[in-house]
């Protein structure tokens, strides 16, 4: 019996003739805080889509050994980037969180008392109770981010995936997010896809560097050579243990700057 909850085995995928992921293999361990890093357009989000079952790879496979079995459907928590859903949708935060309970079997059934209780619990855990009746369009980025995490948590997932979670929130919300994820990581493994390597440096247990290929997968003290290979240009590396900084900012290098 392996300790790996998720195993990505030799996944290759692309659009048209262009290969986005080239024989990528990695795994998510039981206690992992895995940061999938790499430049924009390097295939991080595509890899996440493959793991979540949203796209079928050209070759290779993703194998799950979840506590609930090998069927991952409905067992993976997902916190999307803000750009993937409609932020102007007329919806209250509480109702959005409740949507996390929606699954294949419940299509015709109204939300049950258990669904509502789970949503209330998740909202409480994320300090969202006063915002339950607020609208998606009117809350701050940090509040919306917390609601998205609550929505992912209401179904009690076996692994939590976050796609660029720091991209649309301010510095203060980032600190809250870090504390929150560190706390959640005590019970479930967390996978963060990010080009912002510095944000989660203190709590990351392992990293995976992806730029079409997997360049590195392991403890977060990788060499400058690997980083330069991944990003394709010189980067300063600060050793692990210095909080909040793994890489220095480089003015000529835009791959870890925010685009929002």
């Amino acid at each position, binding site marked *: 019996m392996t300790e790996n909850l998720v195993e990505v085995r030799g996944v290759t995928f692309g659009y048209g003739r262009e290969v986005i992921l080239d024989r990528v293999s990695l795994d998510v361990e039981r206690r992992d805080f895995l940061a999938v890093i790499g430049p924009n357009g390097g295939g991080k989000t595509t890899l996440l889509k493959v793991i979540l079952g949203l796209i079928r790879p050209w070759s290779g496979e993703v194998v799950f050994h979840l506590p609930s079995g090998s069927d991952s459907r409905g067992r993976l928590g997902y916190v999307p980037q803000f750009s993937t*859903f*409609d932020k102007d949708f*007329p919806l209250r935060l509480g109702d959005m969180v409740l*949507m*996390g309970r*929606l699954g294949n079997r419940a299509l*015709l059934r109204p939300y049950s008392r258990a669904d509502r209780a789970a949503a209330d619990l998740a909202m409480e855990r994320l300090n969202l109770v006063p*915002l339950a009746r607020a*609208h998606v369009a009117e809350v701050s980025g940090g509040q919306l981010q917390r609601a998205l995490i609550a929505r992912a948590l209401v*179904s009690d997932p076996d692994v939590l995936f976050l796609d660029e979670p720091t991209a649309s929130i301010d510095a203060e919300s980032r600190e809250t997010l870090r504390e929150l994820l560190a706390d959640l990581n005590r019970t479930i493994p967390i996978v963060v896809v990010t080009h912002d390597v510095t944000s989660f440096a203190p709590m990351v247990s392992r990293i995976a560097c992806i730029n079409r290929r997997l360049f590195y997968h392991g403890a977060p003290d990788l060499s400058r050579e690997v980083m330069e290979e991944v990003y394709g240009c010189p980067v300063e590396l600060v050793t692990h243990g210095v909080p909040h900084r793994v890489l220095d900012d480089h003015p000529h290098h835009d791959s870890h700057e925010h685009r929002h």
Partner: protein
Amino acid sequence: MPTFFEALSYDFLRNALIAGVLASVLCGVIGTFVVVKRLAFISDGISHAAFGGMGVCFYLGIDPLLGAIPVALVCALALGAVDRETIRSYDALIGVLWAVGMAVGVVFVYKTPGYAPNLMTYLFGNILLVSHHDLRVILVLAVSVLALLFLFFKGIVAVAFDEVFARVRGVRVRFLMSLLLTLIALSVVILIQIVGIILVVALLTIPSVISLMLWRDLKAVLAGSVLIGVAITLGGLILSFYYDLPSGPAIILLGAVLLVGAYGFKKVRRRRPVHP
């Protein structure tokens, strides 16, 4: 000249009124999903394509409404089945369906022996021509659409808001999208009777666009667009009665005026940030 309310003793005006209210309820509810899910162009395509079925039925001498229904449904399901990521120009596909439907319709109407129907009636509708038979068909369609929407409401809202998340949760997104497109297709067929092929998209979108400007809760938006839809349909009907205007355009123009008014109202009234 009788007043509008005196004229209601006429069957045709009563039918028009009932059809208008039914259509407005549908518009408000289905139209809200058309607007938030950005399906206006698809709806417009379905509406124009349906004319192909109407033309064929006219040629065969059967009720054009019965020709519009299968064509609209086939178009909706075909557009729902196409994978938008693999087909390069989804909008071009809609455009082609649109034009082919119109062409088929015009050819068959042209080839129909004897009395040539007035194309304008189909293009711009005439709510005053709604018969008892039409009214029964509209009633059955409207009730079915609303019942299906009510049954699958939760899922359709989830898919409309965040399709990717719904897929991760194992929700049958493809089924729900096809269902939504089917409901849109049936609504379009009903609306063709009221405002005609060309103006359908306006009646589907205007009430919901106004409502979305004024309210932020989904249920309030739905209720608001139903009320706005009823108001502009009845208002348009009254205007067309007193000023001898074609009913479809009168309804749409009244809606457009309200839309501009709502936009101005929203601009003037500075909204306070509720949760800074």
